[in-house]
């Protein structure tokens, strides 16, 4: 649905060159929610702005919905942009227009008739739960309501792709959850592909199917969110499970330190008590956490197994038989 190939972007010239993106390639499949995670200044906004050519990449290829964006003429580009909705951190609502007027704007751009606009605006305000605010001005709304208007406005011309530039970064946690919930619903109901950028791991965990991690203009990690979180050593895993106990620290005499990722149904089984009962080992839990990643539960356990060496080996073997990959830092 969206494809970037070898995209670089350099701002400024000569001594003032700022490389914002370096050889970025990524692929967003149709219908998925794709997150780009990175710290402030990593190049996230630049990346998202290269998709609808608010910013022209210095080099590379940009394809959205099958179109080679960089090959489009001015009129074609405007037409293509009507099929790419965008929402912003600071909402960017027109303060001189009412809520209904804001949602109507892209429909006016698309040349819809008054009747069509009326109907569509009503439909969208109902979708985002703001039918009673049609005549209000943006300054009379809360942050969450403003972003809902932003979403309604972005969806008005029935885009196939929605770009979100830190859409929840200016909102409080509860409002963030409700706006993310709305985005997820839209993604499901309308089959809309969403590319969102964020510096918040929470956002990635709660609604993204896939993710790319951006660091100083480079994609350093990319894949399914669940896979990356479940795989120790990835940035996503580390961000998800900040650790207080060094994994590699020496275990108690005779003990084996074990790190385990649990995904999906594995996370619902009483794994430690099973080991204790079947192998007569002691399992001492050092760290453990369970995260919801979209619909999936993903957990990480760090524990120490003590007992007769054969029993400990047996227990580790059992874990592997279960399809788990226990990491044993000290072997």
């Amino acid at each position, binding site marked *: 649905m969206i494809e970037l190939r070898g995209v670089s972007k350099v701002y400024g010239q000569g001594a003032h060159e700022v490389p914002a993106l370096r050889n970025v390639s990524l692929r967003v499949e149709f219908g998925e929610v794709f997150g780009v995670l990175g710290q402030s200044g990593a190049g996230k906004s630049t990346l998202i702005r290269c998709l609808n050519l*608010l910013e022209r990449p210095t080099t590379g290829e940009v394809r959205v919905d099958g179109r080679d964006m960089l090959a489009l003429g001015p009129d074609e580009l*405007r037409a293509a942009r009507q099929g790419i909705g*965008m929402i*912003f951190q600071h909402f*960017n609502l027109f*303060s001189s*227009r009412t809520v209904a007027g804001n949602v109507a704007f892209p429909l006016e751009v698309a040349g819809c008739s008054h009747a069509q606009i009326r109907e569509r605006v009503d439909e969208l305000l109902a979708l985002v739960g703001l039918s009673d605010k049609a005549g209000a001005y943006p300054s*009379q709304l809360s942050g969450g309501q403003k972003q809902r208007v932003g979403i309604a*406005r972005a969806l008005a011309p029935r885009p196939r792709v929605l770009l979100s530039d830190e859409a929840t970064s200016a909102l409080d946690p509860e409002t963030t959850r409700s706006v993310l919930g709305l985005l997820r619903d839209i993604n499901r109901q309308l089959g809309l592909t969403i590319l969102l950028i964020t510096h918040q791991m929470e956002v990635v965990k709660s609604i993204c199917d896939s993710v790319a991690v951006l660091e100083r203009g480079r994609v350093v990690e990319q894949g399914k969110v669940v896979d990356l979180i479940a795989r120790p050593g990835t940035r996503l895993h580390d961000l998800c499970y900040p650790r207080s106990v060094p994994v590699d620290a020496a275990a108690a005499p005779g003990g084996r330190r074990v790190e385990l990722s649990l995904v999906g149904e594995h996370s619902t089984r009483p794994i430690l008590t099973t080991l204790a009962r079947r192998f007569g080992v002691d399992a001492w839990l050092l760290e453990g956490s369970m995260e919801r990643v979209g619909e999936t539960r993903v957990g990480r356990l760090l524990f120490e197994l003590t007992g007769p060496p054969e029993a400990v080996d047996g227990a580790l073997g059992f874990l592997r038989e279960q399809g788990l990959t226990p990491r044993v830092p000290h072997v």
Partner: protein
Amino acid sequence: MSSELLRSLWVATGETLYMTSVAAVLVLLAGLPLGVLLVITDRGGLWERPALSRVLGTLVNVGRSVPFIILMVAIVPLTRVLVGTTIGTTAAIVPLVVAAIPFMGRVVEQGLREVDAGLVEAAVAMGATRRRVVFGVLIPEALPSLVRGTALVVISLLGYSAMAGAVGGGGLGDLAVKYGYMRFRTDVMLGCLVVLLVLVQLVQWLGDGLASRFERASS
């Protein structure tokens, strides 16, 4: 004050209003597009044209830095070509317009620059044409400050018109100089001042009222 003088005050007020309002309309018509161009042709603007931007910027700066009294004399040939004469109220309109257009251009420019760049970006991202961004976003969003700016320009025009009047253009300035100053008629002088004061207040009040109406609509 005799009825005769009252009548001349009345006539002079009419002349001042005529000069100022005709000039204001022309200045608005030229200043608005000028201001828009100053904004959109600039670096990173909607319609980046660096050369044009520099030329316009320079012209505006030159226009703004020539004192009105000099400008008035300097453009006498232009006035003659346009109006056929160089004295009288109609002739005075020419230097008024020439002097105020660059001012109005800057005022409009400043108003438009206050509009959050994010709004322009949002409109561009929605596929809006340049024309729609200017007329559908930039100008409506800047309306309160455009109105306030226009009031400021009109008030300056009132002041300039008095100066233009003093060198043969008629109006309140003319009256004030001819009677109030040269014939030591303090009552005439005071009369002119009061009328000017009232006019300035009126314009200011109108501008503020209109601007805050637009502001209230959106807040």
